[in-house]
């Protein structure tokens, strides 16, 4: 499906403008109500029981698989043409594959979630360090405008979030939310509801990633066994 691949080539090409998009997206996130409907309402009209069909649809799976394969092909080409003649260590190769898969996953998220932007920003940060600094200075200014009167808005939000979960063992819950935030990329310093929402999306994306990579591994091992020239099984 050529349309699918051409449709997805737009996001990765503009790495410069994506950082400004981050700022704009963050601003709109805080400006709209902080309720959890902000991210979901865009993709799911009714957010009752059926959780986020965004990551479970066939189309999304195909998009991600196509992106993944392209990214993996680049990894293969780069590793074969690089100066490391004898095979690089399995760990390094595995890590490159993992990073390519994460990047493809983040791109498939279409920049609507924090963790995807954090994954992509990490790669950009490695290459262009200058772009991160203006982003950092702009964001606190934006958040102070919207969340009235708090300079260290992140610290203020943390105190607010401590207010009642089940009123028993608040510090435990808070601590667990913090550790959860450390697991999800880009959510180390966010407030509690943000972390929770990012975690829900991240888990589904990870599940899709696992499914896609599983099927890819199956396909490849099916091919590498001798005598299997039959047509590839439908995905």
């Amino acid at each position, binding site marked *: 499906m050529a349309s699918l691949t051409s449709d997805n080539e737009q996001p990765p090409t503009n790495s410069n403008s994506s950082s400004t998009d981050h700022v704009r997206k963050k601003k709109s996130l*805080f400006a709209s*109500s*902080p309720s*959890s409907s902000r991210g979901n309402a865009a993709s799911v009209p009714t957010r009752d*029981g059926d*959780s986020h069909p965004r990551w479970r649809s066939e189309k999304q799976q195909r998009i991600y*698989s196509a992106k993944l394969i392209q990214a*993996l*092909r680049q990894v*293969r080409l780069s*590793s074969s043409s690089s100066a490391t003649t004898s095979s690089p260590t*399995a*760990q390094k*190769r*595995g890590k*490159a*594959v*993992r990073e390519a*898969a*994460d990047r493809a996953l983040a791109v498939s998220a279409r920049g609507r979630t924090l963790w995807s932007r954090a994954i992509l920003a990490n790669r950009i940060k490695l290459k262009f360090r200058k772009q991160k600094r203006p982003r950092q200075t702009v964001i606190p200014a934006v958040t102070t405008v*919207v*969340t*009235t*009167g*708090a300079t260290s808005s992140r610290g*203020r*939000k943390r*105190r*607010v*979030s401590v*207010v*009642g*979960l*089940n009123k028993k*063992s608040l510090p*435990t*819950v808070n601590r667990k*939310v913090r*550790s*959860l935030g450390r*697991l999800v990329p880009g959510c180390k310093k966010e407030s*509690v*509801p943000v972390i*929770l*929402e990012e*975690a*829900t999306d*991240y*888990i589904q994306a*990870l599940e899709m*990633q696992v499914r896609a*990579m599983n099927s890819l*591994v199956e*396909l*490849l*091992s099916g*091919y*590498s066994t001798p005598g299997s020239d039959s047509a*590839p099984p439908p*995905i």
Partner: protein
Amino acid sequence: MSGRRSRSRQSSGTTRISEDQINDLVIKLQQLLPELRDSHRSDKVSAARVLQDTCNYIRNLHREVDDLSERLSELLANSDTAQAALLRSLLTQ
């Protein structure tokens, strides 16, 4: 606790994070977790439990992805021509 409440009230009306909201999010998170989803005692699962299981689940998923990417890298390295055919067929489907 009341001191915190007053402080939160004065921070802003629009970004006050309510209990119900957080509870709602935790419930949604619980629906995602495989072990807690089918639990019949859905009212009694505490938030801490949900969060702990979420952390474990994410760690598991990370580990799975790492394993899969290692296997994938080996497969990619070993089978060049077969893989090229595969990629071509997959991309043109």
